[in-house]
């Protein structure tokens, strides 16, 4: 029984950490309708920035914020390339993704793996240090869930502000934004900044949990984030009281749960990628088969 609880805890930990990224990607992919590939580069960016900062003795919570800002800056670059230089969305994402490789290596000083074992992280300092006994086992879950939920709530609030409303219309109805005297391009840049900021934040939390940053950790992040967004929004779209941002976090948890269950059932890891594709397909297809498609997202 302990093992089952432990496995559920692992799923939730991973689900919440990647959920932070999924919430960000939800903004770019669903709200703005932009497939943003730069997350493959901004995820390790967050991790590398965090590793460098923590090694330099910076407070881990500050490291989280700085990682978000760095990710947001990279997102702005994607946005500027797309909006100002009129490069297609896919290509501008790819450009930032590949350039991040070099940026990350520059941050880590050329090494592919940076470890900071034993240093203070958000899971060991401040409030987390107060946790004693059994609660210690749960600290990773508690704090990753905390960060994830805070990010979600802040985004929910933002989407209700005037700027947030403009952001939502920039994806679905750019003409409306123009008619209000605003530039949909600027809204896209803001959206990409938020999306990549969240992704870098997820990278930062993951690095603090593993106490090391790996420059290659970004591989497959786009797919993982899209899977979480699609599974979440499609499966919970009928459930009215669940907001899309919440649904996306559930999607991330469900996705990780599928992987862990498959591994527990003895599926060789060689087939994980295939399983990923199958889950993805099921999520996409169920959406169409459920019939009554609501035009508007339940934002």
């Amino acid at each position, binding site marked *: 029984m302990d093992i089952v609880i432990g496995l559920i805890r*692992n799923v939730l930990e991973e689900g919440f950490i990647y959920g932070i990224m999924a919430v960000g990607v939800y903004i770019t992919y669903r709200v703005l309708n932009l497939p943003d590939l730069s997350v493959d580069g901004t995820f390790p960016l967050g991790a590398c920035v965090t590793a460098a900062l923590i090694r330099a003795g910076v407070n881990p919570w500050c490291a989280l914020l700085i990682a978000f800002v760095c990710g947001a800056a990279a997102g702005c670059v994607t946005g500027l390339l797309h909006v100002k230089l009129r490069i297609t969305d896919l290509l501008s994402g790819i450009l930032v993704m590949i350039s991040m490789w070099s940026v990350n290596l520059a941050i880590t000083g050329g*090494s592919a793996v940076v470890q900071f074992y034993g240093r203070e992280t958000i899971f060991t300092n401040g409030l987390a240090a107060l946790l004693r006994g059994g609660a210690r086992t749960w600290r990773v879950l508690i704090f990753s869930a905390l960060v994830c939920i805070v990010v979600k709530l802040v985004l929910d609030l933002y989407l209700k502000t005037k700027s947030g409303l403009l952001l939502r219309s920039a994806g679905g109805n750019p003409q409306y934004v123009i008619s209000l005297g605003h530039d949909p391009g600027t809204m896209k840049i803001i959206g990409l900044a938020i999306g990549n900021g969240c992704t870098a934040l997820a990278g930062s939390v993951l690095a603090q949990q593993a106490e090391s940053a790996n420059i*290659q950790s970004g591989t497959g992040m786009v797919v993982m984030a899209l899977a979480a967004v699609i599974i979440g929004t499609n499966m919970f779209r009928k459930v009215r*009281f*669940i907001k899309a941002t919440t649904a996306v976090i559930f999607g991330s948890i469900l996705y990780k749960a599928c992987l862990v269950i498959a591994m527990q059932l003895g599926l060789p890891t*060689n087939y994980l990628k295939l399983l990923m594709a199958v889950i993805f397909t099921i999520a996409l297809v169920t959406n169409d088969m459920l019939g009554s498609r609501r035009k508007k997202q339940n934002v």
Partner: protein
Amino acid sequence: MKKIVSIITAVLLILGLAACSSTPAATPAATPQATPEEAPAEKTFKIGVIQYAPHPSLDNCYTGIRLGLEEAGFVDGVNIKIDFQNAQGETTNADLIAKNMATKQYDLIMAIATPAAMSAYSAAKDLDIPVVFTAVSDPVAAGIVKSLENPGTNCTGSSDVLPLEEQVRMIRAFLPEATKIGILYTTSEPNSVTQLKEIKEIAPKYGFEIVEIGVTGSSEVASGAQSLVAKGVDCINNFTDNNVVNNLSLLLNAANSGGIPVFGSEEEQVKNGCLASQSIDYVALGRETGLMAAKILKGEAKASEMPVYLVKDFAPVYNKDVLESFNLTLPAEYAQATAVESAK
């Protein structure tokens, strides 16, 4: 209203989980102390093995680990249960696998290659589960042991430091007139960067100059190899670079079309068409690691006090077919070198 409901759901979810926390909390502290005292014959030990990527040398490590464990009396399915997982070259997978193994309270986690070792270390360090690694070139730099003699962490294993000096001496013997050794390496692989630095210090002693080209991914191996050949090197030497070794055929194609031999870093590469190598026997390395793991399982030693095993035995290996195709003769001092044939 919706917002409030969603917050409540989230809070309930967390509270629900926290409520369960009292149960598993007691267990991780209680179990590990009990294990070493029990006789190995009566208990089935659960061992998790994480291999970082599908790779011939790493596969050999795993074969060796099983041999070593069997030699010490631990047979899979009889008195131990091995859960073998391959992370497919992704750190996200390695982390998840390691976490699950730690959660399942395995008696021992074994890790093949540096990223797997780091994941295992990170997952097991609070839980008192010993980690035994292999094929980690620099465990101190990776942060998983404090020193090679006395790890100080609950983590020990074996290290595969390349015999670069022997390798350069061998290249000199095979190619008495060569002056330039070409190196193709991946800039993001820490082992390769360290090895490059070392070989640059050794090469002048044998009258060689090192010409290196760094690549960042598999797509650049072919063009990197071609530009290396174009720079007029007399031969190419390989490290344990995962990316280059996985794309060895691209490197060999470029080298062959330029008419220059490639020296490998272990036997598998020689079988696949490299001329020769001072090779580490990864099966033997794995076996040694398996024996170390067995000692920990039997309670004879603690991981934190067991020195890291450094590979000592290198054997020269050469490929007869390749030797003939370059019209070279086997140097007298390598007459006893093991001859292998191209794997076809």
